[in-house]
């Protein structure tokens, strides 16, 4: 990066991030001078920002594969899919959150700002093309998330969750940074393509050492077993809307982190990290499921069941073919949207001073609201992986690449995990349909808009399950 080689960056390529940053600053100022207790303007501006960012991302980056900012930033199709997913998930989080936040006195401008900055961090992570930018994105995301978890200051559970999240997250970041420094030491460069070239040639000992730390850092961010201990506490303690955001958008961003760091930069070391990811995947499939069986809190149950899905995503990664990355991405994206709707239903049933987070709160939901019982049925069936819903295609695509790579025993382990998963997902269906509530049971509350978006989200899981072709094609096209 000597002055001779300095080029004027192509700012147009990075327009999504620039737009997000600009609008976030604008919302900060606007909200500062607004006296509206409901922060209506901030809400609508945020939603407009997200939708605008989606349009801009697709318009400026789809179909490209170019770098700018002296090769620190990359715009490619895989990034577009992940970014659009992150932006849409943030949109859903905002749409589901208003009543929930208002009733808990959390409806403040900071919520929107922090979430937008976290989203910006995710976008930066996804488009990073050097280790520093990658780290920058991850930290912007993580720091905003810590603050979001801690937003309910007077809730001991939330404070504890934030503390755990922060300490363990900082540890993970440290691991990641340590690994990155070793990669830099071994290759002499921070830029991803250059690392890949060097990794193909250099002596490997130091690289592999760095690789280990990198994998640990990434696994922490994903919450893969055995680096998962923070996940259940954070899911349970955080306000549900923040849980939704962490469980969905940040997972999609983590896919981006994995792809940039392990697939692109350390692709030549695939043989080395394949075994590590294999162990993580199998551990996630086994541990997550077994512990999810005994949970009575639905947020915790969803947290533990996440491990099962992370196991599936990692299965796609470890195969390492373009189809497998496409499959893993499809899995992550569809999983995120399914879980977003599940948290949406939890928020729908929650009201002031009451969190519908015990499984028993779902008893007899079919009596109270056939529509949202059906939505819950579709979501749980999709998470189980039953055909007719999108969850089946996600599992099938991953299994297909796993079988084609010759890991048939892994596919068998994975489907047995899915059967165990069926048990606890069915328990939710059972409660919704077969059981009578004790007393009244929580009623669905929330505005018509919220209910409509949630119903559409739920039915989309079904529709994508019947017509998955387009989304599959997009995910596959993203990896050429």
């Amino acid at each position, binding site marked *: 990066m000597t002055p001779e080689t300095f080029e004027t960056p192509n700012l147009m390529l990075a327009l999504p991030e620039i737009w997000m940053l600009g609008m976030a600053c604008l919302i900060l100022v606007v909200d500062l001078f607004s006296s509206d207790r409901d922060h209506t303007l901030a809400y609508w501006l945020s939603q407009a920002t997200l939708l605008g960012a989606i349009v801009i991302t697709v318009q400026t980056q789809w179909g490209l594969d170019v770098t700018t900012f002296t090769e620190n930033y990359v715009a490619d199709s895989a990034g577009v899919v992940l970014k659009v997913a992150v932006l849409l998930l943030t949109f859903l989080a905002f749409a589901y959150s208003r009543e929930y936040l208002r009733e808990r006195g959390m409806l403040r401008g900071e919520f929107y700002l922090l979430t937008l900055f976290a989203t910006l961090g995710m976008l930066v992570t996804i488009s990073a093309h050097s280790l520093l930018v990658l780290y920058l994105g991850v930290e912007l995301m993580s720091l905003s998330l810590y603050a979001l978890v801690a937003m309910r200051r007077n809730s001991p559970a939330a404070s504890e969750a934030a503390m755990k999240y922060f300490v363990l997250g900082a540890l993970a970041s440290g691991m990641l940074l340590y690994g990155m420094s070793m990669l830099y030491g071994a290759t002499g460069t921070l830029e991803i393509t250059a690392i890949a070239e060097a990794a193909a040639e250099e002596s490997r000992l130091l690289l592999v050492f760095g690789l280990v730390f990198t994998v640990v850092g990434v696994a922490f961010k994903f919450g893969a077993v055995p680096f998962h201990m923070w996940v259940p506490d954070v899911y349970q303690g955080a306000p549900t809307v923040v849980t939704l955001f962490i469980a969905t958008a940040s997972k999609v961003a983590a896919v981006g982190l994995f792809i940039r760091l392990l697939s692109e930069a350390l692709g030549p070391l695939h043989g080395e990290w394949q075994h590590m990811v294999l162990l993580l995947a199998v551990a996630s499939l086994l541990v997550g499921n077994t512990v999810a069986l005994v949970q009575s809190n639905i947020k915790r149950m969803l947290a533990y069941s996440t491990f099962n899905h992370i196991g599936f995503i990692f299965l796609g990664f470890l195969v390492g073919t373009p189809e497998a990355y496409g499959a893993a991405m499809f899995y992550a994206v569809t999983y995120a949207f399914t879980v977003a709707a599940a948290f949406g239903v939890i928020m729908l049933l929650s009201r002031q001073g009451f969190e519908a987070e015990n499984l028993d709160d779902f008893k007899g939901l*079919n009596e109270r609201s*056939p529509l949202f019982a*059906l939505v819950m*049925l579709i979501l749980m*069936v999709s998470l*189980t992986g*039953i*055909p*007719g819903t999108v969850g*089946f*295609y996600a599992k*099938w*695509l991953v*299994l*297909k690449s796993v*079988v*084609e790579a010759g890991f*048939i025993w892994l*596919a*068998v382990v994975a*489907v*047995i995990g*899915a*059967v165990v998963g*069926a*048990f606890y997902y*069915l328990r939710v*269906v*059972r409660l919704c*349909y*077969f*059981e009578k509530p004790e007393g009244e049971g929580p009623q669905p509350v929330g505005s018509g808009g919220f209910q409509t978006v949630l119903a559409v989200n739920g039915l989309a899981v079904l529709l994508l399950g019947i017509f*998955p*072709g387009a989304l*599959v*094609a997009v995910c*596959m096209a993203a990896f050429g």
Partner: protein
Amino acid sequence: MLESSWPLLSVLIWLPILGGALIFLLGDDKAAYARLIALLVSGLTFVLSLGLIIGFEPGTAAMQFVEKRPWVEILGVNYYLGVDGISMPLVVLSTFSTLLVVVAAGTQIQYRPALYLACFLLMEGIMVGVFSALDAILFYVFWEAILVPMFLLIGIWGGAERIYATIKFFLYTFVGSVLMLVALIYLQFQAQSFDILEMYGLGLPLATQIWLFVAFLLAFAIKVPMWPVHTWLPDAHVQAPTGGSVILAAILLKIGGYGFVRFALPIVPEASMELDWLMITLSLIAVVYIGFVAMMQQDMKKLIAYSSIAHMGFVTLGFFIIFEIVVRTGGDGALLALGGGMVQMISHGFISAAMFLCVGVLYDRMHTRMIGDYGGVAHRMPVFAGLFVLFAMANAGLPGTSGFVGEFMVILAAFQANFWYAFLAGLTLILGAAYTLWMVKRVAYGEVANDKVAALEDVDTREKIVLGALAVAVLWLGLWPAPLINIMEPSLAHLLEVVADGL
């Protein structure tokens, strides 16, 4: 391949599914409309399915009424439908059974009737889909999707232990099918196509075939169900509402048998031959041992559930003795065995549906399924008793009823394989008669047992129509099975050729 001029199979799949969605949207407030629409939709579907029989070209093994268009193009999954002589009768059986169930439901179901009927219509479409799918993934989609409405049916409208029963049902079948999914993915990788017919004759090595066979076996044996993975069935049957039991016995079990002829035999013939001793043993255990178990049951539904397992043992026996027959005699008895298995599936569809409906008739009046609570029902319900006895005779395999034809064909073929197979299978004629007729005797005959029985009223018009239609079917298939056998024969002969080529 015979293309159809208009998509009859698609109509048979989607008409009931959309009808079910409409009924769900109508909601329980308009239950009368829901019942009417359900009746119309299932009636129309049944009438349309008769078009399959009329338009069916006998004498060919080719797939008919074929529809093929890309579905998930990038992955090579096609929306590929078609029926041959093996699957067409099962499709018609599905539409027939659903119509009966909808008629029989009448106004009996008061709790959320719209959802109840919607579940049945949804299942009807899915069942037709299972039998007519020619793309492996499409087949798997329908095969698994059927679990969800059945899960709800047993869980919402079932008896006291319904939740245990329905979760057991779901998990059992789910375990079997996920392994089949892995097998199908592997086969796609080998055949480079999801077309089921292209998976035939791949010439895979024996060791691979055995693994694939084990995966298929788990999936289909649980569904059939074969001993020792049958234990979900009595629970599910006892707890399910009458309509659920009828569909479960008449159609869902057949999907397992159908899976063996469509997948296991032609795709992994060598492994099927290698492991036929296992299949024959399990089938004979089902026939004999489960026959004894049935005899000891106090609960009528449980008794019929066990008798279903025993009867389905004939189906699997018929399918897997073909290898020994081919080895011993060179072949002509093999067709008889396969045909016997198929006829037994159709016949058991009628008989088990009728038996469960009969128990339903009694249960609606007395709210008990225990044999001991009955006695002398014939004095109060003569018409019912007449029909009940007819179906019981059919269940016992009396000549002249449909139950006789399939079992006789299988036993006859079994003689060509091994005398002892035929002997053990023949025991069913004694056992079946023993458990069924003993139950009938205790329930229908003797003195009027108690005041409740004394207050019984005979079957009403609706019940007469339902049971009468089944009686006609049972007798027709028993007296004149030739049309059915003619439809099936070319396809079964072709199947035998495929199997023989693969050996």
